[in-house]
């Protein structure tokens, strides 16, 4: 290297070292603080779930400590006489949820299939917003409609007041539909195009392709959709409270069962909490029901998560 180049280099290096350090020190502090807050926000979610469970326990634990389990899961819910059998409430939730799922799952799946595989784009443009609209309707509004409009119809079917498990299932079905539809849609969308193309190439009709290729491939996603729909149905409060009749006893088995009034766990909490004294046994039991609900939905979510696993999609290019 000749002398001029060497001089140039020395000069260049000197110029660089004379460059101000920039804002590195202040930057380091801001960076540290901000990153700290962000990490805290992330971890706070775990803390919040734990807190919710803890507070439920705090107020509800006496239920499981004081009341013998046999009575707790016994068949009579009669708080006035100190009888806190949860069984009728659990059965109530079960009947209404099962009914809602039976109504909603076939409808939801077929609508998802329609949207994903059959509908032309212009119809999709109309339908998807409509389903989002359904998802947005507050549960109280649907419950209200069930109360004033649907119940009289059910009444004409033979139920004395029209406030029955069937009414509840119908309303719940419509509330769970958007969840089922959108997650099923995602599951169907995730099936690679090659599967469909392959089937069509060997001469299968569209329906055969859907039935034999696409649906089986989307199996786990569809199962998750159903599970989450169930979770949505079990957790609903106001709508069922308004239309199921609030009779806290186990209906008789038989063809009449859907037309009996029932009471769900969620409705019990909402209806009776306003009238209990804080710290009383009734109060603890209501929190105890809350614990049961928490555990049930927790289990459903764990199951659903296990089915598919959590996927993180990074769009755009890669490093």
């Amino acid at each position, binding site marked *: 290297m000749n002398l001029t180049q060497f001089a140039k280099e020395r000069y260049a290096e000197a110029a660089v070292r004379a460059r101000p350090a920039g804002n590195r020190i202040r930057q380091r502090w801001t960076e540290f603080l901000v990153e700290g807050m962000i990490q805290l926000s992330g971890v706070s979610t775990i803390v919040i779930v734990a807190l919710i469970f803890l507070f439920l326990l705090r107020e509800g634990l006496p239920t499981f400590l004081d009341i013998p389990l046999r009575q707790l899961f016994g068949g009579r819910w009669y708080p006035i006489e100190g009888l806190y059998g949860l069984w009728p409430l659990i059965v109530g939730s079960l009947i209404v949820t099962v009914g809602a799922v039976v109504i909603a799952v076939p409808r939801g799946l077929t609508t998802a299939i329609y949207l994903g595989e059959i509908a032309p784009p212009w119809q999709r443009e109309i339908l998807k917003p409509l389903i*989002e609209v359904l998802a*947005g*309707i507050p549960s109280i509004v649907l419950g209200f409609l069930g109360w004033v409009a649907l119940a009289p119809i059910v009444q004409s079917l033979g139920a004395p007041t029209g406030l029955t498990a069937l009414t509840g299932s119908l309303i719940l079905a419509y509330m769970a539909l958007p969840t089922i539809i959108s997650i099923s849609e995602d599951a169907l969308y995730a099936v690679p195009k090659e599967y469909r193309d392959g089937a069509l190439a060997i001469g299968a009709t569209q329906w055969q392709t859907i039935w034999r290729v696409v649906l089986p491939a989307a199996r786990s996603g569809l199962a998750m959709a159903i599970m989450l729909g169930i979770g949505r149905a079990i957790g609903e409060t106001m709508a069922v409270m*308004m239309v199921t009749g609030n009779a806290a006893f186990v209906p008789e088995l038989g063809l009449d069962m859907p037309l009996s009034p029932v009471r769900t766990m969620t409705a019990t909490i909402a209806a009776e909490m306003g009238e209990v004294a804080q710290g009383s046994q009734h109060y603890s039991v209501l929190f105890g029901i809350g614990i049961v609900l928490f555990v049930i*939905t927790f289990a459903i979510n764990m199951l659903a998560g296990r089915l598919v696993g959590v996927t993180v999609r990074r*769009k755009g290019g890669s490093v």
Partner: protein
Amino acid sequence: MTRQHTQKIAVALITASAVLVVIPIIAVIAYIVVQGAGAISWEFLTARPRNGMTEGGIMPAILGTLILTLGTSIVCIPLALGAAIYLAEYAKDNRLTRWVRLAIVNLAGIPSIVYGLFGLGAFVLFMQFGTSILAGSLTLGIMTLPVVISTAEEAILSVPQEFRLVSQSLGATRWQTIRHQVLPHALPGIITGVILGLSRAAGETAPILFTVAAFYLPTLPSSISDQTMALPYHLYVIATQVPGMPLSVQYGTALVLLLLVLSLTLVATIIRTRMRRRRDW
């Protein structure tokens, strides 16, 4: 039956089913509009109720819902945004991250009445905030977290990786990259998610039952430790517990709530489509 026959029948059934799903949605909304429109008037929207709620307006309930929505956003947005940024940009592929995601999935699944119980136990009683706008906003805010976190995270992840790479190669720190390259371009998606979450919170009844809602208050709330009326709760009470309440008033209240929630959803959708069209990459 030939395959072609099966095909046609299947498609017909599926289409019919989808139509049967859609028609009631439209019918429901139309029915409420028709039945409730008659009750809507300027007075209905701006006056206080009179005569045992059977006359006058529902302004305090509308105001209460708006106040609670504001409170919800204050509680929810900073926390949700932080968690979303954490998940999208900082979280490594380890156990802690998996637990965070699990926590969020579970928060999403907790029934709204259980949130109400939590609000009662934690904010009304333990923190001694009493039934108040503060307690109600905290409860609703926490309930809205999972929805906003999910949509915000998705919006952040949809910003192409190249921008982060270029930004860091030019000497920007990670936070600078997030603040100048990622967040501005994820903003439409984030805003959409926030508005959707808020619209859901506005319509919720169960969480506010024991934490803030009151049916009749002589005065409007003046501080965050006051109770307030709210539309969803108001509708519930006048529909089920007030004898002699005119049906038109009930439908009118339902309509107002419906319009409030749906217009928020509409705004969110509009923002999403307009911003998507203006993308610069």
